[in-house]
């Protein structure tokens, strides 16, 4: 998205559309009551979540208002009491090391050394899940957990939103841990 937004300006490319982020829409739809998420599924379980503020989305594009929308959605889905901030956060957050082409450039040792900062930041929260609403962050933070054996999971918001609405199918749980594998599954017709 950063590439498109900056590219449109830099190269003076005429266009009629506006750029929007799905995070903004999630937040708007939840506020308007259209997206009926709730955090009841996590009341008893008390599974802890932290959130990665993607550089491209927050610091480099929309700034702190986007970070607030991200928290609003997260809290609505996992429960306010189950959300833990990383330090530092929002526009001040550390890059995870998945961006800038690092995942593609064939320098895994340097990439993981860079990512150790992020890994330590996540581990310090004690959260079992890091919400990563960006593909590069998702891949990198997932890899860091495996490589340094942190045991936390890296998960997209779309997975948790559907989980909280009871509409997450069996094949859509790749990134959930055992603790959530069987929660509110939307089973296929044959199995019902």
């Amino acid at each position: 998205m950063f590439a498109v937004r900056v590219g449109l300006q830099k190269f003076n490319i005429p266009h009629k559309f506006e750029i929007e982020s799905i995070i903004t829409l999630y937040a708007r739809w939840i506020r308007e009551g259209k997206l009926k998420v709730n955090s009841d599924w996590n009341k008893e379980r008390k599974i802890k979540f932290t959130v990665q503020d993607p550089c491209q989305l927050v610091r480099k594009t929309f700034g702190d208002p986007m970070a607030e929308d991200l928290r609003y959605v997260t809290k609505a889905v996992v429960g306010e009491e189950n959300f833990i901030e990383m330090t530092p956060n929002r526009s001040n957050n550390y890059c995870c090391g998945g961006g800038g082409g690092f995942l593609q450039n064939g320098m895994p040792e340097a990439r993981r050394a860079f990512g150790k900062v992020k890994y330590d930041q996540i581990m310090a929260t004690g959260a079992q899940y890091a919400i990563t609403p960006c593909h590069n962050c998702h891949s990198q933070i997932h890899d860091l957990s495996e490589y340094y054996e942190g045991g936390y999971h890296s998960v997209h918001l779309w997975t948790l939103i559907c989980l909280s609405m009871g509409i997450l199918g069996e094949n859509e749980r790749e990134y959930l841990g055992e603790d959530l594998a069987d929660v509110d599954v939307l089973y296929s017709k044959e199995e019902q």
Partner: protein
Amino acid sequence: MAEEAIKLGGKKKSTFIDQVKGLLPDGGNLNLCLTCGACSSGCPATGLEGMDPRKFLRMAALGMDDEVLSSDWAWMCTLCMRCIYVCPMKIDIPQLVFNVRKSRPREERPKGILGSCDMALKHDTCSAMGASEEDFQFVVEDVLEEVRETQPGFENLEAPINKKGAEYFLNQNSREPVTEPDEMVPLWKILHSVGADWTYGTKGWAAENYCLFMADLENWEHIVRVKAKAVDDLGCKYWLNTE
């Protein structure tokens, strides 16, 4: 003393940082460094290759062009912009790094990014994994059919492709259609639940753009143009970026 030695070592007349200054508004403030270290202390690339952003800037300012231009560190900085965000003088170190990348002959840039950029130029999908228009359409329709047949409550789920006048033109990272197509489904369900008017486009659907990070301006521009045209051709109001 040490500083003096460095200066002498780099005495040959250098123009690299001057060239970069010439490209940036206010010269990127590249000669305003207070050496406070705020950039380096919050940069996760500090220490890699014995480098950090303050040092990189300093070396460039001292005219140590060979060291700066040949260093792999420019490919280890993620252009995350935290340094400029915290810098009291708003010094544009990421642009300095970007231009170091750009100065390397194209074929000598890291193979992985080069391959991803080149792959994205093969089809108007802009997919860095090389997925074609047909590949994408096939996967989306296949996954959709399976969900409609098996998942209760989603018999009417939709994943429109090339729907003219839809409000949102949704992009998608290639990883999903290519390697984990089931991951697209939760997003479709969310859009379905709120009754959003959206579409994919067979052209320009891929969200990624590695040509930017490869500092390949020409192809970065090409990709943005293809995507912008795809959205405008369908008459969509918003280009919707996913997670």
